């Protein structure tokens, strides 16, 4: 167990203890919500885990790095950024996927672009965003988010 996992579990345990002391009913309610969300996300967890296995087992680092590695240039970054914007998976699960891509030869820039567009931009939820906030604001937010995601990714690649 690494330090991060210990800290996260520690926060959860301390939080739960405080919650139980403050309000037992609310604490039990939050545990129920946690249980339901955990079960809901499980199928997606297994999907991502299997995809990671296939990715690391079948695709060679050479192939990955050709598309989204150091040698792929800005084209690769834009490509992963676009894939991230289109994909609709829970952000929590994008990180293990990103880690496996990094492990198998993707560049920091590409991985940062992937995570940032995936979390910031929602093409799937865009109709809802337009309905609630209007076309102008929704399109501006998603469009400019793509540009800044690429800029953030390029800076990440330069400093890491």
């Amino acid at each position, binding site marked *: 167990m690494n330090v991060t996992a210990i800290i996260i*579990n520690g926060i959860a345990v301390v939080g739960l203890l405080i919650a139980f002391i403050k309000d037992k009913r609310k604490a039990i309610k939050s545990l129920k919500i946690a249980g339901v969300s955990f079960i809901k996300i499980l199928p997606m967890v297994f999907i991502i885990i299997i995809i990671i*296995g296939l990715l690391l087992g079948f695709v060679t680092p050479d192939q990955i790095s050709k598309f989204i590695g150091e040698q792929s240039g800005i084209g690769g970054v834009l490509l992963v950024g676009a894939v991230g914007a289109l994909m609709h998976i829970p952000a929590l699960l994008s990180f293990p996927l990103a880690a496996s891509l990094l492990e198998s030869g993707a560049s920091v820039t590409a991985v940062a672009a992937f995570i940032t567009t995936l979390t910031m931009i929602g093409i799937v939820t865009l109709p809802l965003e337009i309905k609630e*906030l209007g076309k102008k604001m929704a399109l501006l937010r998603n469009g400019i988010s793509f540009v800044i995601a690429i800029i953030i990714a390029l800076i990440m690649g330069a400093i890491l």
Partner: protein
Amino acid sequence: MKGTENKKINKNMKEKQKQGMIRDLIILGIILAVTVILLTAFPDRKGPVIGASWDFLLEMILILPAVMVILGLFAVFVPKETVVRYLGKASGIKGIILAIILGALPTGPLYIAFPMAAALLKKGAKISNIIVFLSAWACIKIPQEMVELQFLGVQFMISRLILTIIFVFIMGLFIERIIKWRDKEGGVKNAI
């Protein structure tokens, strides 16, 4: 009236989540089948594939329940009404910082935030604050940062976090300028 509206949204969301769950299970089935076929065709890949999956599964299992507990605690103890109340009042630099903090609280998926943002806009909240709030909600969530730390390391997580905050802030001001400028030209009626 507000109560029934909320109930309707909740019911809609539950339906959607149920459909999503079924869709996920179907995808899982397909991927499992594909994997079995692939591993039967290439038995030498069995070791690496299962090994990699197993490692990542262990790492997920170590943190996911704790992350879910933290999400559950926030959902119950910091209801979204509180978020709306605080953000509606805030302005200036304080407003931006508050928008980031409130957006970062683990209070649910992005589509919950859209109606909240719309309500805040109607109440007269600043456009820049709302953009920052939405973006923080989308990509600076506390549980997300924890999982990022676990899988990508402290350097990656911190630098992406700082860069995101800076650029989201700039984006908020920029979009506010554009919308205000266009409204002056084209009339206020298509502002929202």
